[in-house]
């Protein structure tokens, strides 16, 4: 009887904890959305920002955030995929592997400022890349790599060894087993990693101040030639993202509607993250179905 009671109490404590967390999370999201959503309008989403007058929008910043995210994923995803496969499938159990693992974890604890300044001195100044969206994407890759790598490794690990043995038994090479059997099976977990990484990219400010810069140059949305300086796709233009914009108007903004713009931008950011999550999951699920032949 005592054991059953214990069980009941423990399960209920877990429920209470989960409920508390939900309350905290809902409070946070509610706070941001309630104060921000009333400021969102079509004009706000599409027009350029103002440096001191009211009525500024976040159009360019919104585009920059999304573009920067895609670039960062393009750079960091293949690398972390390879590294994740290495750690879960190939890594020998020796001191080298544990050093690599530790290095990755230490990388994730670097403060943004340090990565930002590293990127500034190396990419912006030494490699003459200037304050550019490319410098920013590389700096963000540094944050993304540890998170993504660990997540991919963990999701691959979660696939039962039976699958690997089955692959081997069919005479497949290890590489083919991993890429054709294990990887598709691990896809949902990997998508979670991508989504988490994307959140981090959307929310990062300190590292970008020194690399992608904090000014949004005028871009011409009619010009899609990536080599033209005014094109939205240009890799070498400075690009202020939403998070940097929020930081900037909160710390030095003198426009009369600074707090409204900041609240609106925060709400937009959350909505964009939400949309990205849904989008990534839909793509992930359809891919999963296609690759694993589940209905």
């Amino acid at each position: 009887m005592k054991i059953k009671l214990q069980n009941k109490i423990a399960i209920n404590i877990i429920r209470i904890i989960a409920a508390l967390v939900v309350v905290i999370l809902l409070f946070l999201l509610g706070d941001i959305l309630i104060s921000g959503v009333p400021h969102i309008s079509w004009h706000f989403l599409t027009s350029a920002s103002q440096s001191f007058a009211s009525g500024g929008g976040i159009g360019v910043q919104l585009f920059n955030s999304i573009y920067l995210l895609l670039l960062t994923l393009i750079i960091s995803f293949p690398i972390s995929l390879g590294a994740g496969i290495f750690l879960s499938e190939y890594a020998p159990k020796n001191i080298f592997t544990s050093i690599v693992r530790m290095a990755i974890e230490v990388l994730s604890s670097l403060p943004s400022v340090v990565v930002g300044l590293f990127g500034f001195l190396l990419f912006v100044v030494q490699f003459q890349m200037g304050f550019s969206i490319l410098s920013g994407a590389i700096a963000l890759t540094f944050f993304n790599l540890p998170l993504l790598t660990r997540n991919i490794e963990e999701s691959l690990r979660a696939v039962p060894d039976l699958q690997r043995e089955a692959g081997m038994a069919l005479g497949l090479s290890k590489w083919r087993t991993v890429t054709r059997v294990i990887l598709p099976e691990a896809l949902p977990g990997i998508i979670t990693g991508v989504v988490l990484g994307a959140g981090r990219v959307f929310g990062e400010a300190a590292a970008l101040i020194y690399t992608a810069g904090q000014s949004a140059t005028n871009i011409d949305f009619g010009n899609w030639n990536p080599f033209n300086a005014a094109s939205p796709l240009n890799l070498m233009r400075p690009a202020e993202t939403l998070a940097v914009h929020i930081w900037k108007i909160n710390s030095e903004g003198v426009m009369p509607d600074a707090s409204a713009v900041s609240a609106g931008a925060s709400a937009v950011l959350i909505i964009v993250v939400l949309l990205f999550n849904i989008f990534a999951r839909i793509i992930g699920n359809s891919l999963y179905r296609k690759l694993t032949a589940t209905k």
Partner: protein
Amino acid sequence: MDPIKKKIQSSSRETRQDLLGKVITYTCIALIVLVVLSIFVFVASKGMATFFVNKANFWDFLTGKNWNPSMVDSKGKPMLGALPMIAGSFGVTILAVLFATPFAIGTALYMTEIASHKGERILQSVIELLVGIPSVVYGFIGLSVIVPFVRNNIGGSGYGILSGSFVLFVMVLPTVTSMTVDSLRAVPRFYKEASLALGATKWQTIYKVILRSSTSGILTAIIFGMARAFGEALAVQMVIGNAAVMPTSLLSSASTLTSVLTMGIGNTVMGTVANNALWSLALILLLMSLFFNIVVRLIGRKGRM
């Protein structure tokens, strides 16, 4: 030529595929190691300059309580005592993780063991959303909600380690939770089934089987949470008060390595003592997270045996 002999002697398609796989994955891992190494060398070379170029004493740096890089003391050495910041960083990080761990494990258990599939999905999306909130926004919510709350209900001016760790608690919660969920999911299903078949209750299964076998995964999640807490600057900076003095209580203003680093780096000139000293703080930060990492790993190894 004998085709069979040829086939046996040359490497098979599978072997070649495997070689390709090895090359690809080794390259990726080498790339990451290279990145880590270059940052390490970069930070170390800048951070060491304080001791080799500016001749500061490393031990004084670690234990000194007076931080004022632009001034010199009676012996003509710059006042570089980083202990207040080290203590502050330790304080907020440990407190935040202490708050966050039970919540994260509880929520993760609820998601993996108790909740319905739908409830689990909703909870997961909400947690993922939280990762995307910029730290500035966390900082301002901390400034407008947590600081007054601490001031009115607990005491002090509201700025201090306690407020800092509350903000960090919320910030690391999503990271720790989602990683704990991953490692709980990685527990083979038959462990659970075997335990339940033996007549164990759900709680007994969770406590004696699931948590035990995912200990190292949970520990890694905690390390990552700590790492995030350590490296976080913008949000903590707004609520901790940034006074480079030894923290006397959880309610008095303190500072962390990152907050001093972030505030000072734009105002100092590269190559000066003040700037080098900030890089030394970054180096300490790196070494400290390395240290934490090793300690937690050792604990994890013991726990498994």
